[in-house]
């Protein structure tokens, strides 16, 4: 009997072992919450984590670098979008203001875009996208919603060159409101101007506005230019030294109006 059993085991050892192993495996599977197994698994994870640490750190570093690269690209893209959105908002605002200005203006206004602002920062020569084909002529006056910008110095067929009023040699015949005193305006520095020929016999105060006088052959009357910021007496005591700020932010200009000759 025993020898028969022994012979059976020898013959079928593979099947018997398989049945035992499958049984044990199923038993283990049914007891997955076994505390000893969990402790062993945890300890193994502790041990293996030490071995894996350098690779994990390398992987982590690589991911951080990739993520950083991606984030930089995202930031750049978002900044571009934000900048574009802000530019559009400002352009929209300017155009709205211009429309308002056009509605209330007594002149025929031709909208124009500044297509080139010179190769150096602060230059007073600009290129407009309107020319003779649009009835633009030399000395056509350029304005912005805030006031006077300059004049066209050369008109091509489809574009024109213009000089803004902050050029050093420019002189403007002006009128100070509300007293209606006339004088000559010169560019001072930055976005400021100076008037030095107003007699001290008339009252001039800070905050008053300066407009074109209409005595010039080029500029029509009553185009706003700027606001007086400082009033002092000259050395001889007969005239004022008046400083003021232009209304137009020349550096930020994008669109203008050209006063066209009918």
């Amino acid at each position, binding site marked *: 009997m025993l020898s028969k059993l022994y012979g059976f085991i020898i013959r079928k050892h*593979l099947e018997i072992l*398989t049945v035992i*192993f*499958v049984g044990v495996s*199923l038993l283990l599977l049914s007891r997955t919450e076994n505390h000893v197994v969990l402790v062993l*698994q945890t300890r193994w994870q502790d041990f293996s984590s030490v071995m894996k640490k350098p690779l994990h750190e390398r992987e982590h570093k690589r991911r951080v670098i990739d993520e950083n690269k991606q984030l930089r690209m995202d930031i750049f893209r978002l900044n571009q979008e934000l900048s574009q959105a802000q530019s559009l908002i400002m352009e929209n605002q300017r155009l709205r203001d211009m429309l308002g200005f056009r509605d209330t203006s007594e002149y025929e206004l031709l909208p124009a875009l500044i297509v080139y602002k010179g190769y150096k920062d602060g230059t007073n020569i600009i290129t407009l996208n309107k020319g003779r084909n649009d009835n633009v002529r030399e000395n056509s006056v350029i304005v912005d919603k805030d006031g006077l910008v300059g004049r066209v110095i050369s008109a091509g067929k489809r574009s024109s060159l213009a000089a803004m009023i902050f050029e050093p040699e420019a002189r403007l015949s002006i009128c100070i409101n509300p007293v209606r005193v006339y004088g000559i305006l010169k560019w001072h520095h930055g976005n400021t101007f100076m008037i030095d020929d107003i007699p001290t016999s008339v009252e001039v105060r800070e905050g008053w506005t300066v407009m074109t006088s209409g005595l010039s052959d080029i500029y029509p009357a009553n185009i706003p230019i700027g606001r007086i910021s400082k009033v002092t007496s000259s050395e001889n005591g007969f005239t004022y030294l008046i400083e003021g700020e232009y209304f137009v932010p020349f550096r930020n200009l994008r669109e203008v109006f050209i006063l066209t000759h009918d």
Partner: protein
Amino acid sequence: MISNEKKSSLILYPLLSLLFVLGILFNDFIGIAGIRPDILLVFLIVLALQESALIAIIAAFLFGLLQDLVLPATLQYWGLSALAKTLLLFTLLKLLPLIIRLRNILFFLSLFGMIFIYYLFYNLLYYAGFINWLTVIYRYTLPESAYTFLILMLVHMIFPLREK
């Protein structure tokens, strides 16, 4: 004098053991899109083709248990790998006389079939109730079988599998 067969085994088994240990330790680094090979499976197939059935089946069970213990993906399934590997080795050992006589392409196809059945069995139990069976097949079973079979082929290129 040590025979050539013994010399080959002296290199093959330490190499496979090293691969197995490295595969366990760095399992998460050898994956491609979440698909990882089972180096132990390769080890056991080589063992079944080169060694006795008794050694192969005991190794399948014991190493299967060890694998369940150490691989993070199987924390809640201790015994599943041992069960699947024991059944695979039993089937392979029973079919071995037939498989070994097959021509090259059929021989390797049958080995791939074995690996595929192993993964199918394992994955269907592992993902039971979470992912439908069709997804289990094309998302996990097929790619994992292919990756593991590739490792087996690499081993075969160095140590031909049918030199028993």
